[in-house]
């Protein structure tokens, strides 16, 4: 089947078997290997991307299901080389060690920040922990990931205020 998926703002087209997973499509066709595969069973969250603005596990979406839709991956977080606050937050708060779960975690966190920003507030710690509980990190014990999201939320609020 021929599919066209807008990935990080650019249309990507390819013939695929109906069974091909979105995670493999993203990694192979535009070669965006920042989205990782980790478990087969939708438990680990290393493959989280945004599908039309919503965080999804791309190992549980077929490429054909994303035909005509928009996907944003970790490579699409930075704009014109400028890091997204969640990326800076992860660095500032030492929220990554091996880095394998990091793209999925950051995409889950970005979606939460967007959702709460629309409500005009920052997420609570419990909301952050709930939002990332669809992902597994073996290295950090999550505490610094929570801190990174808090950092990003504060940073974004400050930018907004200054603007």
């Amino acid at each position: 089947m021929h599919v066209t998926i807008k990935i990080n703002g650019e249309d990507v087209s390819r013939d695929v078997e109906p069974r091909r997973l979105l995670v493999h499509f993203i990694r192979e066709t535009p070669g965006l290997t920042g989205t990782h595969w980790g478990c087969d069973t939708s438990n680990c969250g290393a493959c989280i991307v945004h599908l039309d603005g919503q965080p999804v596990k791309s190992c549980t979406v077929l490429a054909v299901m994303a035909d005509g839709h928009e996907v944003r991956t970790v490579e699409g977080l930075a704009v014109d080389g400028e890091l997204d606050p969640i990326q800076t937050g992860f660095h500032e708060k030492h929220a990554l060690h091996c880095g394998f779960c990091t793209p999925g975690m950051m995409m889950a966190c970005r979606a939460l920040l967007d959702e709460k920003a629309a409500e005009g507030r920052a997420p609570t710690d419990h909301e952050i922990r709930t939002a990332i509980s669809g992902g597994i990190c073996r290295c950090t014990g999550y505490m610094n990931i929570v801190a990174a999201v808090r950092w990003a939320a504060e940073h974004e609020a400050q930018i907004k205020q200054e603007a």
Partner: protein
Amino acid sequence: MATTAPENLPSATQERPIGFGRLKRKEDARFIRGEGKYLDDITLPGMVHGAILRSPYAHATINSIDTSEALALDGVLAVVTAKDLETLGLAWMPTISYDTQAVLAGDKVRFQGQEVAFVVATDEYIARDALPLIQVDYDPLPVVVDARKALDPDAPLIRDDKPGQVDNIATPTWEAGDEEATDRTFAEADIVVTRDVMYPRCHPAPMETCGMIADFNPETGQLDIYNGNQAPHVHRTVYAHVAGLPEHMIRIMCNDIGGGFGNKVPVYPGYVCAIAASIVAGAPVKWIEDRTENLTSTGFARDYIMHSSISAKDGRITGLKVDVIADHGAWDSTAQPTKFPAGFFHICSGSYTLDASHVKVKAVYTNKAAGGVAYRCSFRITEAVYLVERMVESLALEMEVDPIELRMRSFIAPEQFPYETTTGWTYDSGNYAETMKVAMDIAGYDELRREQAEKRERGELMGIGISFFTEGVGAGPRKHMDILGMSMNDGADLRVHPSGKAVVSLSAQTQGQGHETTFAQIVAEELGIPPEDIEVRHGDTDRSPYGLGTYGSRSTPVSGAAVSLVSRKVRDKARLIAATMLETRPEDLAWEKGRWYVKGDPEQGALIEEIAQRAYSGEPLPAGMEGGLDAQIIYDPPNLTYPYGAYIAVVDIDPETAQVTVRRFIAVDDCGVRINPMIVDGQIHGGLAEGIGIALMELISFDEEGNCLNSSFMDYLIPTALECPEFELGETVTPCPHHPIGAKGVGESPNVGSPPAIVNAVIDALRQRYDVDHIDMPCTPDRVWAAMQGRPEPPQ
């Protein structure tokens, strides 16, 4: 060689230290952009894909394997079986514990998930499509999954491939300590407490599974290997022995690794298959296991069945006795130093001044996947610490004394270091009581006990659990330790370029520990070159010196010392050059970070970059000196290092569902001098989360037919952010006396120390109302509920 004492302890506030301190990680830049380069991110021209057919049976005879249907599938290039490997001499390979293991099963399979055939295809999907097309005719055999039953005289013989093997004993019974003296100590004791304590099988389950790309060039005979493993130099030596390839024509490149935790130490059959397939197919072959393959066939952890007694006299702990049956699975591949078939388990005398102790360990084969030493575990220390801390807690309960009080009475005192234990270890340094007190302060221990008493009145179940651990890490001295005959030493190679910027190459291999930052900081501390001007190279056997790699918390104790000492070698040479530059004698110069200067005239000096420039220039050097400012070293540690810590867990148990929640976790670690306290804290957070997993949910179990019941993340449960509390950390700093910068290593400590604290807290919550004195891990609701009802716990 210079032996300068550390001049600067890490600063908690310094943002951009030249040397030790909370430096943000250099490696983050690529990871936060999704630009890490993990194994599966690499695609080579002409690359084909491998997949492994695995045994559905735990024990069966193979009558025949028919690959014709699989070979007929479009896109399938080859199907490799044991018969093909036999012709290459690759059907069997050595384990890292001097045992043998089948690369692909020939006449028999010995555990569920064992490798039976290797398919090579143009696409990963096609390779996996081919697997069910391979017809294997099995005759199932009786299965042994319980290590105790493996010792029955009529148990089926698992390793009938080994000449002379008549039973399921994997290694001869290994002992440490003094049995007679321990019996005397027990006879004189006021109280003896006996328990059966099981450390069940669990799995490191790194987020990135194992895999390899093998790229053999038939024209040149060069074998390039891309592989995320924790010990690339050792793997290269093993491949040279296994495949008969010349070691200098093998290059292993480990790029970014998505976690290891000991799971990526061994050489797995899939690696040998990928190499063989690349030789046969004449193309690069990529093989990456799926999650089920990772959980069911690669190095598991623990599986220790321990029977133990502990004694006290005059209110103090006096003796410990342990009898262990170790389940090694179908092969003995535990990666132990040769002299220690039970690893460092005999460190189980813990942090206490015992009069005597005795340890006996018997290892057996079962129809389960092989492994045993993994998961942030320095050679069985995790089992040892769990055992002694459960036993001390049990003793305190029986003596009706506060568990901290009993520990305080029995601790090795600061003035007793270096302290020789009853099983032969020489602990380097410590101030245990002080560390315990810091933990009590952070926890508000007395207030917690008051809160607990009030809650008990109201029928609420709150528990406070203590653990105090001492680890021996940083293996190790070549006089005591080797792996497969190779000394456990590590190299470092430092090159300071004419501009004063430097490259340091290591044999240690990061899997997320932040080596690119930490090791740059060590050079920065020693030479005063800013960390951003120091490139750390590792993981590529062509670009780093030989060494045994990263596991057992050995990077900082061994490679860290190597990097420190190689920097001092450069500094010593720089002093001689500076003396020539300043027209004075070397002994008239003094060092400050980044600069040699004239004593008594500090204005007169030479910066390290000026000295580097001189070293490569046409200007004169001291008589007889070669140009350049490079140095190399192989570091042989004189002893292990002995980090320790005091952990306190606070748990709540729902009386109606038996769900255990870790409400607070206080961890006070003493790992000596901290190079980067931010990274140290991060290591502790991660290990504590793993400890919560092991104590409460992580379990690899089997039914009686040997079916693995926890073969995916649907049923091998790993803590998420919702099960982990905000950890409360503290520290004391007792430098290691023999390490050049006084560091001890920390990676494994939190995983080692936390499970006993949590289980002790669970027992503490239940003992009064339910008369529960022990529950084996994991403390899942069904197991805790059964214990509360006085019923036997479900099997593990």
